[in-house]
C-alpha cells in the first residue's frame, strides 16, 4: 500500500515535470524517501526546481515545449473566427509581381534607372479606373482596379495595372508598375510612327497611321493619351472591333512595339535606304 502510494506520488511528480511546471513547482520534492529509489545523484534540498536536473534522462530543458504560449498549429484557437474563410495554411505559388493587389512598395531609385526627379517629371495618365468585385463565400469583395500609362514624352513609355481597396492606392500601385515596365519606342523624326501599323490584340484591332508634321494627334482617346506619353505628335489612330479600354491600351503598346524600321528592312533586303525628306530638303 505504501509503495503504491509512493509510486503514485512519483508518477504525479513526473507528470507535473512533463507539463513544464518547472517555474512554479507546487510541491518541491523534499521528502528523501520519495527520491531515493530513482535518483542517481544524492538529493540536495537547497537547489531550486529550475536548477535541479530533470527526472528522465532523455528530457532536456531546451526541447520541452513552452506551454505558456498557444501553439498556432497544435493548439485550438479559442477566439471565435472573424471570417468564414479559414486562413491559408500555405502561401500560393503566384509571384508577387503578377498579383495586382499585392501589398505596395513605393518605388525608390534603386529599382529603376530613373532618378526620383525624372520619375516625378514623367507624364502619368490613369486611363482605366473601375470598381471590380471578387465573389467569395463571404460575399462580394469590392476593390478598385487602375490602369496607368506613364511616359517621358521622348520615346519612353509603359503601362501598369494595380488593384486595391482604395482607388488612390490602386493608381499608385499601377503607376509604380508602369514605371518598372518603361520601354523605349522608335519614332520617325521624334514625332510620328515610321509607317502605317495594323495590330490585332484579342478582339481589338488598332490602326496607327503615320502623318505629316502639323497634323496633330487625331485618334481614339486612349491611343491619344498613349501617344502623348510616348511623344508622338502627328498620328491618325483608329480602333476597329472591341473598344475595351484595357485591350486598346495593350493593343497600342503591342503595335508600337512591333514596328518594322526602314533600316532593318533595308538590311534584310540588301538595299540601301535613304530618307529623301532629310537628304533632299534638309528637313529636321
Amino acid at each position: 500500500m505504501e509503495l503504491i502510494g509512493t509510486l503514485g506520488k512519483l508518477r504525479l511528480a513526473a507528470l507535473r515535470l512533463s507539463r513544464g511546471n518547472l517555474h512554479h513547482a507546487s510541491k518541491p520534492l523534499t521528502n528523501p524517501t520519495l527520491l531515493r529509489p530513482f535518483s542517481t545523484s544524492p538529493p540536495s534540498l537547497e537547489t531550486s526546481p529550475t536548477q535541479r536536473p530533470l527526472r528522465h534522462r532523455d528530457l532536456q530543458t531546451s526541447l520541452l515545449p513552452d506551454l505558456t504560449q498557444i501553439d498556432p498549429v497544435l493548439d485550438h484557437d479559442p477566439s471565435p473566427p472573424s471570417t468564414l474563410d479559414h486562413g491559408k495554411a500555405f502561401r500560393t505559388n503566384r509571384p508577387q509581381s503578377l498579383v495586382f493587389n499585392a501589398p505596395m512598395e513605393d518605388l525608390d531609385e534603386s529599382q529603376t534607372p530613373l532618378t526620383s526627379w525624372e520619375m516625378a517629371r514623367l507624364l502619368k495618365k490613369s486611363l482605366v479606373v473601375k470598381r471590380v468585385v471578387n465573389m467569395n463565400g463571404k460575399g462580394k469583395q469590392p476593390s478598385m482596379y487602375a490602369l496607368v500609362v506613364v511616359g517621358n514624352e521622348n520615346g519612353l513609355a509603359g503601362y501598369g495595372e494595380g488593384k486595391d481597396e482604395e482607388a488612390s492606392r490602386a493608381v499608385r500601385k499601377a503607376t509604380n508598375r508602369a514605371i518598372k515596365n518603361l520601354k523605349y519606342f522608335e519614332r520617325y523624326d521624334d514625332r510620328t510612327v515610321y509607317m502605317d501599323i495594323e495590330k490585332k490584340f484579342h478582339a481589338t484591332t488598332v490602326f496607327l497611321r503615320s502623318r505629316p508634321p502639323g497634323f496633330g494627334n487625331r485618334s481614339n482617346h486612349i491611343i491619344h493619351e498613349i501617344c502623348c506619353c510616348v511623344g508622338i505628335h502627328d498620328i491618325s489612330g483608329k480602333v476597329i472591333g472591341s473598344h475595351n479600354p484595357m485591350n486598346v491600351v495593350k493593343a497600342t503598346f503591342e503595335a508600337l512595339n512591333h514596328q518594322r524600321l526602314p533600316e532593318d528592312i533595308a538590311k534584310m533586303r540588301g538595299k540601301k535606304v535613304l530618307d529623301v525628306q532629310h537628304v533632299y530638303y534638309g528637313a529636321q
Partner: protein
Amino acid sequence: MNLAVSNILYHQGFISSVARGNYKAPDEEYTPTTPDNIATRRLWLTLKYRDNEPVLTKMSCISKPSKKITFTVTEMKSMVSGRRAKFVEPLQPGEIAIVSTNYGVLEIHDAMAKNAGGLVLCRAR
C-alpha cells in the same frame, strides 16, 4: 508572268533565288518548257529570313479577276508617294507593287520611269 514576278521579288531582295524545275527538284541544266513536260514544271524560290522573321511577310493581289485595277502613271505616282489611288491603299516604306505593262511585268518604279501605265498585279512587303 509568275517567273517575271519572282524575278522582281528576287531583284528587290525579298527572296534568295529563283529556279525553274520540275515538281521534284530545280533543274540542274536548262530544260525548255514543252507540251510534254508542262504539267511537271514548277518554280523553286528560296525564302529569306533574318532574326527569326521573314523578309517577305505579306503579299497580296491588288487587281483580281472580279475587279481589275489599271493605273495611269499619275495614279501610280500618288500610290507611291503615300496617297490612296482608286481605293488602293498607298505603298508603305519597304513595300513594292508589281505592274503588268506593255513593256512587260515591271516593278512600279520601273514602270513610272518608262512612263507606262498598266494592270497593278500585286503588292509585297
